[in-house]
């Protein structure tokens, strides 16, 4: 038992790993709390595409010394506008449009970074995260963004549930269904920024979608799904970080794989229960 504890505790002697653990925990709480709505609304592909398109916004903001969150929100807004404009043409399917806009903005981000002569800017930092470099200032910014996002999710919980389940009825009882959708997409952009250093843009969707999907297998209400998803998110983040230290593997990828492993275990445990019911 003691050796298991020391296996878990050993990485956290160093300050940078303690910072990394806090950063990972913030992602482990926030991403699944947004992710349950992304999953239930079948927006996982849009979430994945938004994470890639965000490269343009965060790279641009970083290079001109502006806030990364602002850059990400601007990228999300530009993406939404471009999708809406292209969607007006009846011959273009929405998933194809999302794919086109995503790659265009991702490509612009790559070119922007490659042309930069700013020291220390590396494409891989954005794509795969750089959890060992999380500073106290980064932690403060991420914590503030997460508290704002979680407060909004808590305030709008019932309306999000109503409009996800039955948008027609929700609009009839006075809920602003369209505004809620845009608010959710804004929270998605904020979550991607908060995930940037921990898991990176490419794998931020893993923390959005995987814990929420595992939670769906084990939940019959949205409230329960929320708490199970956050539990899986925190366990994946801290478990993955610890494992990455011992295996000397990339932390973002390890965290994503631990989350997938937890989904696989939940699947294996819950499938027989579901089969027995049918």
């Amino acid at each position, binding site marked *: 038992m003691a050796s298991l504890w020391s296996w878990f505790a050993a990485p956290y002697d160093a300050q940078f790993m303690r910072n990394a653990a806090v950063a990972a925990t913030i992602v482990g709480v926030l991403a699944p709390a947004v992710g349950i709505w992304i999953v239930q609304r079948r927006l996982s592909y849009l979430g994945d595409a938004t994470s890639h398109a965000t490269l343009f916004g965060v790279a641009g903001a970083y290079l001109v010394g502006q806030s990364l969150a602002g850059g990400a929100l601007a990228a999300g807004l530009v993406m939404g506008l471009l999708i809406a404009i292209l969607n007006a043409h009846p011959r273009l399917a929405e998933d194809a449009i999302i794919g086109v806009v995503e790659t265009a903005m991702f490509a612009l981000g790559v070119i922007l970074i490659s042309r930069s002569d700013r020291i220390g800017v590396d494409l891989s930092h954005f794509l795969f995260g750089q959890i060992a470099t999380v500073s106290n200032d980064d932690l403060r910014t991420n914590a503030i963004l997460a508290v704002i996002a979680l407060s909004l999710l808590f305030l709008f*919980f019932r309306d999000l*549930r109503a409009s*996800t*389940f039955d948008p027609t009825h*929700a609009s009839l*009882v006075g809920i602003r269904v369209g505004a809620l959708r845009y608010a959710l997409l804004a929270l998605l952009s904020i979550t991607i920024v908060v995930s940037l250093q921990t898991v990176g843009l490419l794998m931020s969707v893993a923390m959005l979608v995987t814990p929420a999907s595992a939670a*769906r297998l084990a939940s*019959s*209400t*949205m409230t329960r799904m929320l708490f199970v998803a956050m539990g899986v998110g925190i366990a994946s983040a801290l478990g993955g970080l610890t494992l990455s230290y011992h295996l000397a593997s990339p932390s973002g990828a390890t965290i994503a794989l631990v989350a997938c492993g937890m989904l696989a275990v939940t699947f294996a445990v819950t499938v027989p229960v579901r089969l027995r019911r049918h």
Partner: protein
Amino acid sequence: MPTLTRAVALRLEDVGVRYGGFTALTGVSCSIGSGELVAVVGPNGAGKSTLFRAVAGLVPHSGTVAFGGEICHHRRGRMHAAFIPQRSDVNLDFPIRVAEVVMLGRRRFLRLGQRPRRIDRDAVSLALEQVNLADRRDRPLGSLSGGQIQRVFLARALAQEADVLLLDESLSGVDRPSTESLVTLFEELAAAGTTLLVSTHDLALARGRFARCLAINGRLVADGPPRACLSDRELEAVFGSTTGERAGERHIA
């Protein structure tokens, strides 16, 4: 159906709906009394759902929609109406319990983020008792039968304290015994003063259980007791050829 002895719950004047260049519905005028149970019949694409959506304020329309004499120009006034969707329009895999669905009807009485009050929980319990589902309140919605799910949506409409219930093909995919007991429930609700408009393909049911029928085919073709409304001549106007079948025996799939 004359509604002289009843207060008017819903009045439509020259209501029409266009989708782009396509006219889905035109010139619908009628008056529905409080506590009336009305069948709305017509073939697929006749505009039954469009009519309900216009009444509920879910699609833009021309003409006038008035609830209890009050003309509605904006969405808020439409909370007097509850729209009960087809079962196929509802995501039955959504993780939500029966009582939570019914509580959604109370949102119009709550501020943003406000927790349901005692009066809201009582309204939910009462609505579930009215539809005989009090013992199912904690069950996941997806575990219920088709008829029970329609009862849950009726309970949500009752919790919403809507005066006019618009049931869009609510009886489709529901077995015969459940259909009969649902219509009995409609009759009980109507007797208690709720106005119900039920769109259906089942002409035999409309003839047997409803006192008034609106026949729709892009416009209001007939309005009156089903025996007059669903005569061969009227049916031909609504459905095209009747092929000599007796109206009451037809069941349009």
